[in-house]
């Protein structure tokens, strides 16, 4: 039913759990199935240095969350905000049609985290040198 990459991330999820004082955090919920994903970002020099997640959901949603924490490492915030569900799905080795929502869930939560980072970066400027 699910491919080996997906099953590996489900079995051994990477980067699970809360992050202390993240530079950005975002979440997304699928109102139909109740799946909920939260991401926490550590950003260094405008790039994602570390990401962690917490997800309530089906196997693919958990696996997609885990995979995304590795996929986005090193991305600029702009690149993170432009991440597509297709990119997550491809990296995950594909999703069954009725589980595509897992990639949407993860991307929505990551975009929210990117947005959160940007809003913080503006509110708390570090001598005006932060980001952009």
């Amino acid at each position, binding site marked *: 039913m*699910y491919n080996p990459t997906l*099953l590996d991330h*489900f*079995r051994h*999820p990477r980067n*699970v759990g*809360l992050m202390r004082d993240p530079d950005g955090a975002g*979440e997304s919920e*699928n109102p*139909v*199935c*109740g*799946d*909920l994903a*939260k991401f926490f970002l550590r950003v260094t020099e405008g790039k994602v240095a570390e990401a962690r997640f*917490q*997800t*309530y*959901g*089906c*196997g693919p*949603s*958990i696996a997609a969350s885990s995979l995304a924490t590795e996929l986005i490492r090193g991305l600029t915030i702009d690149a993170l905000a432009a991440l597509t569900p297709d990119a997550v799905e491809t990296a995950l080795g594909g999703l069954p049609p*009725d589980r595509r*929502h897992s990639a949407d869930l993860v991307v929505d939560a990551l975009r929210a985290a990117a947005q959160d980072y940007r809003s913080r970066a503006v509110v708390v400027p570090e001598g005006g040198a932060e980001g952009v």
Partner: protein
Amino acid sequence: MRRIYLDHNASTPVHPEVLTAMLPYFAECFGNPSSIHSFGREARDAVETAREAIAGFLGVAKEEVVFTSGGTESDNLAIKGIAGAPRSGHIITSQIEHHAVLRTCQHLEREGFSVTYLPVDGHGLVDPEAVERALRPDTILVTIQYANSEVGTIEPVEEIARVARARGVPFHVDGVQAFGKVPFQVREIGIDLLSFSSHKIYGPKGIGGLYIRKGTRMVPIQHGGDHERRRRAGTENVAACVGFAKAVELRAREMHDEARRLTQLRDRFWEGIRERVPDVRLNGHPTRRLPGTSNISFKGVEAESLILALDLKGIGASAGSACTSGSLEPSFVLTAMGEPPEWALGALRCSMGRGTTAEDVEYVLEVLPAAVQRIRALSPANVA
């Protein structure tokens, strides 16, 4: 890897004796039961002997048993067959029927019939008095399941039958999940139509039956030859009829002991879960329930991920009915029972059967709590 099958309400393995009984009816005794020659007569004998065995098990006349392609067709034939005689009227059913009943009723609504979908209580029970209150002068059928496939709750069919009979309204029972698992006599209960299936009781798939009480007015829904006393056109699936009858014969022998054994295993399972896992609840009736069926909600766990985790350990369980497992929404059965979504989404159905051992249950009790803990640890709901 050790493999444990806990999805007997979805389907069961064909009993070896059933398979052996069927084998001659593919290539050796292959005739069409409607043919006059000896090839046909041999096949006819096989079909009628099978019908007699099943009728005997149900305590009904052989002429009252119609072979169908399975439970879904039986439900369709019963409901549309009754509805087709007067061509209009009112039907009473419940909100937690199998889709074969619910969607047939919804179809008839679009055709102009009116349907009452009775609510159920927190245990999944239909109230017979609610059936009585719902009866109208134009009610043509009451259709209620014997037992629910997701939670296993056994409905008060005796009381409902009395209510329907007092008003002269035919009573159809979807008995697919109960047939061959719990003993009952359709005549004593007062059932007019009973749907039942073979592959839930270690028989082959693709065959089921419908008991139609003599004198019940109905029309066929499938047209063709004069098979099954003109009630169901189509050449009988001879090998499957033979296998089905063998499965029934074996159930008659095993059912009572099995029901007792599975009830013990089922209760041990729930006791073990309750001891080992916090935030759990048992769905369905605590005692008035199918022997092997446990439907348990794990708060903060999405059932799909738990099924996947168990599957990776060789355990086959499900989230409610197999027909709806592709669905993302919480079970309509649990929702009708008033279960909040956060519990309903974490509902796991484990249905045991004749192959399930006490050791299997202990193994699952080792694996399952760890799987639940692991998934809960991933979830933000746990931390919130």
